Every structure is written in structure tokens, then in C-alpha cells.
């Protein structure tokens, strides 16, 4: 392990300074991106960064310090800074948020990769995107086409004063396309796959699976057609959400709501709190009996899948909602302890510079029992929506309003004409309790979200929400456009 000697020095230094526990997370991060815009390579970059973050526990409080200086003086100074910060926190502590961990793991983890992105020459990546992007310009109204590939590689080492030594290699990949159609008085976006592209843990096979080339012309044509499509209806009606919009729905109205740090008020001034409370476990009927949502941080290809989280806890599978009932939360060691549970290893940091905190990781909505097309049966007058365009939810995670890029009327059980600017709104538990059908595993997708914002300083997290399309009854639609 590359950083073992440096880690030992830093941990010794933290203990010497007075910490009763310390851990250090060293990361070497590589992020490659290619982006083509209107036939030009707008981004061709290879960004690398290396550094470490030290957590020191002292007098009942945590301190965190990070640095890119891996020399002896840097290690000692950063360890001392972490301890000093912990002491400053403890000096005005009215109560404790934390206890020192006692677990010890010695292990390795690597993301399973079928096709190493390093074997795909940069020239091939560029040529592929230039070809894909060209096909977005299906109509003269397409003013902007974009196509991109992201390839991320993280080498991570974790050491603690309880003896943990964990080495991880995490590979994540993604790609997508976007077309902007413009008329004299309107602009309409279409993107694929989903609204931000297709991101999973894995190698080049994830890029191939996105099938950008096969869908580029369709996406361009849809953006063009949206310019002259009728406005989506307003009122109250049954809706069907495509699986990528379900990913967003789960992310905003379940994933964030069930973060135990948020519930405890740790994000109160910024990301907000939650309508949930530990006393509601086993009592709150979050959704209909069809709704079961798991946290599975071992999920193959899940964008948040790792062997161990960023406080050195082993990845596990646990429940958030079981048969519609609230049963659990996303937790860290400190927050789990407050409700008498073990952590479910949902702690992540954006990279070495950032303090680890609770993230929703991989959320899995279990699929239903019928084909996607069968969801349309039984809808007399409704709306099918796909690919998010706008998302907003209150700071208790209750009142939401989401908009999609494209919609289709549903008339007498059949998909009808295309409509533009579809929106819908609701209140979280009422909405999930109106779910009366979820499509089967054939249309289930493990969507990745590479840009989830939370924390101060703001951290960008990589999460996954896995879902099939689903149907909801009597939902308010058209808000923002007169509804």
C-alpha cells in the first residue's frame, strides 16, 4: 500500500498530540472527460489530484484536516491541525455527537471492470463522440448538440488507529447526449440516457451500454418536435413516470428524507431537515404496499458501490421502506448509535479534501410484476413523463414540484400525442401512497447521479437510484404553466 508509511506517521502524530482515535484516508483521483459541442471538442481533459484527510477524535469531538502535502512536516502539521480543531470543538461542547470507533478491517476491494477504459485510446473516444454528436443535429432547429464521456478512477487507502488497513480501487464511468432546439420564442432540451446521462460503477462497458449513437437522431428529432408540441395539460390526473424520472423522485423524496444526519438537524441551516423521525419507524406508511426501497451498497454496477465507506465501515444491504412502511435510514456510526443501530456504511466524502458525511448511496426500488406497457392499461386520461428538467423540494422533503423534458398524453389506456413542459407536484407520503403499479425487472435501471449536492462546504456526491417506471393516481399536473 503506497501510503502506509505516511499513514503510520500521521496517526502516530495525532495520538501524540492527544487524539484518542484517528483515521486517515489517502486518495489518488483521476477524472478524464471528453465533451463535444456542435462538432468541436469543447473539453479534452485529464485531471489528477492526490492528498489525504485525517479525522481526529479528542475529548469527545471530531476534528478533520486535509492536505496535499504528503511530506513528513505536512503529515505532522495536518495531524496537529485535526487535533487542534477537535479540541476547539470540545471546548464549547454542551453534549457529545460522537464516540470513537472500535472496528478493525484489513481488506481490499476493487470495482469489477469488464473493459478497462485505459485500453480505449483517447482518439477513439473523441471520434466516437464526434460521430454521435453529429447525429443530434437531425433538424435545423437544433442549435446545440452535446455529447460527453466521463471516466473516473480512484485509488483509496484507509488506515485507523484501531488497526484498519483498507485498500480500494473504484472505477466509475458515464456518458450522455443533449440537444437544444430553439425557435423564435422557445427553447427545448432533450437528453439521453435520462437527464444527465448514464453513470455506473464499471469501465468502458458502461459507455457502450448507453447506446448513444443508436439514440442520437431520435433525441434531436424529439427536441425539434417539442417546439411545436402542445402544452402539457394542467389539473389532476393519473401519471406514469419513466425510470429515470423515478430515479429523481426516489433521490429527492426518499433518499434525502431518510438521511439520519439531516433528521438529526445536522444539515438544518443548509440542505434542511426531514419530515421523518426515528419514532416513525414501523409506524409511518410512507407509500403503498408496492413500495419497497433498499440501500444496497454492494449492488453490482451501483454508482455508489464500494467495499468500505469513508469511515472504514463495511458495505451492507439494509431497508429504508419495506412494503410501504418506513423501517430504516441512511446512517453513519455516530448517527446510528443514537437510535441503537449499527451503521449501514453510508458515509462518503467527495474526495480527500472533504470531511466524510452521510450519503444516500445506492437506493433500490424493487421492481413490480407487470410489463411497462401494462402500466398504461386502466388509465383513461393521464400523462406519461420522462427525463427530468426541473426539480425542487422543500427543506423538510415534503412539498415537491418536478418537471420533465417530454410528456405523452394517455388516452383510454394508450400512449397519445407528445406534449411539452410537463410538470407535476405533490407531498411526499401522499404521493408514494398513490403508487398503484410498478413495472417489472425488464425495465429496471440502476441510474447513477454523479452530482448530488450536500454539506458545507458543498460536496458533490455520486449516488444511485434504481427503478422501473411506475404509475401514480390523481396527481396534480401542469404547475408552473397555469396548473
Amino acid at each position, binding site marked *: 500500500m503506497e501510503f502506509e508509511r505516511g499513514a503510520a506517521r500521521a496517526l502516530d502524530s495525532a495520538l501524540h498530540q492527544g487524539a484518542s482515535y484517528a483515521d486517515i484516508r489517502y486518495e489518488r483521483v483521476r477524472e478524464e472527460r471528453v*465533451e463535444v459541442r456542435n462538432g468541436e471538442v469543447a473539453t479534452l481533459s485529464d*485531471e*489528477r489530484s492526490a492528498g489525504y484527510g485525517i479525522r481526529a477524535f479528542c475529548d469527545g469531538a471530531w476534528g*478533520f484536516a486535509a492536505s496535499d*502535502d504528503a511530506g513528513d512536516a505536512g503529515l505532522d502539521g495536518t495531524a496537529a491541525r485535526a487535533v487542534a*480543531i477537535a479540541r476547539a470543538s470540545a471546548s464549547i461542547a*454542551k453534549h457529545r455527537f460522537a464516540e470513537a470507533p472500535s472496528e478493525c478491517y484489513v481488506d481490499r476491494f476493487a470495482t469489477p471492470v469488464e473493459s478497462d477504459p485505459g485500453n480505449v485510446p483517447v482518439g477513439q473516444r473523441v471520434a466516437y463522440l464526434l460521430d454521435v454528436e453529429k447525429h443530434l443535429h437531425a433538424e435545423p432547429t437544433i442549435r446545440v448538440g452535446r455529447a460527453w464521456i466521463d471516466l473516473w478512477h480512484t485509488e483509496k487507502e484507509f488506515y485507523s488507529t484501531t488497526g484498519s488497513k483498507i485498500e480500494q480501487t473504484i472505477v466509475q464511468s458515464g456518458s450522455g447526449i443533449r440537444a437544444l432546439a*430553439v425557435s423564435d420564442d422557445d427553447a427545448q432540451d432533450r437528453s439521453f440516457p435520462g437527464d444527465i446521462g448514464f453513470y455506473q460503477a464499471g469501465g468502458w462497458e458502461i459507455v457502450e451500454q448507453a447506446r448513444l449513437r443508436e439514440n442520437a437522431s431520435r433525441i434531436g428529432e424529439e427536441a425539434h418536435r417539442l417546439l411545436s408540441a402542445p402544452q402539457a395539460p394542467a389539473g389532476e390526473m393519473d401519471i406514469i413516470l419513466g425510470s429515470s424520472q423515478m430515479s429523481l423522485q426516489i433521490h429527492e423524496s426518499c433518499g434525502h428524507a431518510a438521511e439520519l444526519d439531516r433528521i438529526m438537524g445536522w444539515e438544518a441551516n443548509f440542505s434542511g431537515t426531514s419530515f421523518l423521525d426515528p419514532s416513525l419507524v414501523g409506524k409511518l406508511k410512507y407509500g403503498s404496499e408496492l413500495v419497497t426501497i433498499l440501500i444496497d451498497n454492494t449492488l453490482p454496477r451501483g454508482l455508489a458501490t464500494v467495499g468500505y465507506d469513508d469511515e472504514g465501515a463495511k458495505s451492507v444491504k439494509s431497508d429504508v421502506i419495506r412494503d410501504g412502511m418506513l423501517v430504516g435510514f441512511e446512517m453513519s456510526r455516530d448517527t446510528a448509535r443514537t437510535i441503537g443501530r449499527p451503521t449501514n456504511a453510508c458515509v462518503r466524502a467527495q474526495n480527500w479534501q472533504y470531511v466524510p458525511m452521510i450519503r444516500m448511496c445506492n437506493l433500490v426500488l424493487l421492481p413490480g410484476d407487470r410489463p411497462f406497457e401494462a402500466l398504461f392499461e386502466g388509465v383513461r386520461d393521464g400523462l406519461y413523463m420522462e427525463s427530468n428538467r426541473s426539480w425542487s423540494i422543500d427543506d423538510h422533503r415534503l412539498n415537491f414540484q418536478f418537471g420533465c423534458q417530454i410528456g405523452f398524453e394517455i388516452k383510454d389506456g394508450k400512449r397519445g400525442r407528445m406534449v411539452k413542459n410537463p*410538470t407535476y407536484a405533490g407531498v411526499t407520503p401522499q404521493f408514494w401512497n398513490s403508487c398503484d403499479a410498478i413495472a417489472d425487472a425488464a425495465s429496471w435501471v440502476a441510474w447513477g447521479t454523479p452530482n448530488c449536492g450536500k454539506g*458545507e462546504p458543498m460536496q458533490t456526491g455520486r449516488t444511485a437510484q434504481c427503478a422501473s417506471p411506475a404509475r401514480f393516481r390523481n396527481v396534480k399536473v401542469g404547475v408552473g404553466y397555469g396548473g
Partner: protein
Amino acid sequence: MEAERREQIAKALVERSKADETEVIIATDDRALTRFTHNAIHQNLASANAEARIRVIVGGRTGVASANAGDERALGEGLERALELAGFAPADPLLPELPRPARYAPPAHAFIEATNQASPERQTQIADAIFAAATDGIWAAGYVATTRNGITISNSQSVMASFDSTDAACNAKLTATDSSGYAERFSHDVDEIDGRAIGTIAGDKARRSAHPRAVDPGDWTVILEPAAFGELLAYLTGHFSAQAYDEGSSFFSHNRGLQFAGENVTVVDDFSHPLHRGMPFDYEGTPTKRVALVERGAATGIVTDTTWAAKLGWDNTGHALPAPNAWGPHPRNVVVEAGSKSVEQLIAQTKRGLLISRFWYIRTVDQRKTIVTGMTRDGTFLIEDGELRGGVRNMRFNQSIIEALAGCEFSDTQARTGGYSYSIVVPAAKIERFCFTSLTDF
């Protein structure tokens, strides 16, 4: 890392490069941040980083790489990777040259030694002062942060631009049984961060908005405090980018000079405003010009960078973001000119309306129409007959920003507000006919 060292590193990399053109950005970030909730600190951190960003151009082909700036070997590898990447890019025959040397006018207020020297104990003291205002069952959550940033931009045209700044920030939300209040302060000088004052304002709002009542959604007259108005306006600033204007996603695309607001509305981008961070050049080393984005209600100003100035044949206003940048130039120092009345006068002249402390989770619903949605949060008050009448439950709005600006009036005092991706200087704004679409239970 001091400016002299940053310049040495940048100069050496530029000289070493075999590319036709080379640009090196050395950016350092040294920050400390203390977060608290329930009147105690739960996260307390510090981090230090120095990053090098290298852009090379070879025969019209561009490659970008980044690496740790303090690591000699990583820097050399970064330069080689940028050169290698450029070899895979198609040539752009119209790619403009990198900027040439220019004179910069850094403001005097940007770097304050007290902020640079702030200790963990200093931040703890500020937090503790906020806790002192959180009494009678009220609890405080928030943060105190200090940062020191340094940036050097050097290129093969002999540009060498360096800038150092400090910043301090604090906000607090004080929560009572069924209400909450918010206050914030941003400054270059940590000594201007008064924890007791912030706690008192937020606590007072929490107390005065207790037992919030329900009011009907619909069109309301609103008075937006700077934190609320700034967040709303942040969703308009991107419309003044040359790229947005050209591609058709701006509300005034190909209609420069569009009169959309009253003559009292003037918005400029001005790095030298004393409340802004004060960086006098952009991320290509071009001096940042003062640009009037909205002049007396007309959308007149558009910001550019080297690429978009060349594409459109316009002046380079010096608003580039760091390479690689597929999103075009951006106004980063927006200032809304103040009006002539105090917030108290605006309230006193309101028959029925709402005073709003803060918005939350604003997102664009319709780009061209500038319709956004979002929520009120942490202190929303009913105004009747010119007086505050207690708190109201939070509401969701759907509102066109340009239509809001068409009927607005500004207070006489500006404040800096912002989030993690923007900084904006605005007065409070009174807006007629602000559209709320739903009500919450809290």
C-alpha cells in the same frame, strides 16, 4: 503557497512546454469551516490544496490536465498529458490566441490579515456567540468559515497575473417549536462577522414567526430580503453569457437591448465592488471589465471570454471560467443598484404582502420564460397595513424572474449574499404580483 512561489511554478511550466501556446493556472485554497447544530459543533474541518491546471494548444488542438501544484513530478506528468491529449483533438482553425499581458487593478480590500490568521478558536467563539442568542428552547444551526485563496495565471504570451484574497462567511438558522429564522454575513474580514448580531437577528425572526398561519397561495406583493432576492437573481445571471445569447437559451437571445423592466432596474457585473471578492482578471488572465448587464430596465450587456469574443467579433470582457469550459463565459460579480427607501419604508408602504427572509431550492422551470420554482424558508411574515403581523406557513412559488423585475422597487442598502457557486450583491426588493402556487404544513 505565496504568490511568488505560484509564479515560479507557473513560469517554469510555461517555459518547459513545447506547445504553440501554454496556459498555467495555479490555484490555492486554504479553508477552515465550523458547522454547528443544536447549539454545539458537530463538524469542524480545515483543508489546504494547491492545484495546477495546464492548457496547451498545438496546431489549433487543445488539451487540458491538472495536477497537484506542490509535486514537481506530478507537474511534469501533467504537462506531458496535456500535450498528449492535444494530439487527439481535432484542429480548430479559428481558435483564438491566448490573451496578451495587460494591467490589472486589484482592489485594496481583498486580503485581510485577521482572516488569514483566524484560528479554530476564533471560529468557535463566533459560533458560541450565536449560541448565546439561542435561548428559551430555541436551537441554532449554521456555519462559520474562513478561506484564503491565491491564484496565478501565466501563459506563453507573457501574461503573469496573481491575486490573493481572504473571505469569511457565517450563517445561522435558529429554530423554535414551529418556526425558524435566518441571518447571514459575508466579508473579507473575519472581524466583521458578529456572531451575537447574527444570532440575535435569526432568533428574533424565529420568535416573531411563531405559530405561523396559513395564507392562500396566489399573487402577492412580496419584499425579498437580500438572501432571497440574491438567490432568485442568480438564476438570471447566466442569460447574460455570450454563449447563452448566441445559442438561444437566453431570454433576450438575438434581441439585445430588450426593455423588460422598469427604469429603476440597473444590474452590473463589477469585480471592484467592495463587497465582492475582487479578482481583477478572469481565468485566462484577461482584465475583467465592468459590464452593465441591465441598464435602466434594458438587457444590454453580454459578457465574453477569448473564445466567444472571437466567435462573435465582440470585445473580450474578461469573464472566462477555468479551462476546460464548455459552458461559456459567466458574470461572477453581479451587483444590483440600490433604490432610495429603507426596508422599513417598503414595509410601511405595503397594504398587504409578505416579507421573505430566504428562498430554498430554486430551479428553472422554463429557461426562455425565466420561470423558476422554489420555496420560502426560515422566516416568512405577513404584512398588513404597513406592519408585520406574524409568521405565515411556507409556500411554493412559480414565477418569471423578468416579469418580477418588471414591477419592483429596491431598498437603499445592498448586501452580499450567495451560495457555494455564486456571490451576488443586492438590495432588498419589493415585487408586485409574485405568484405562489401551494402551501406547506409548516
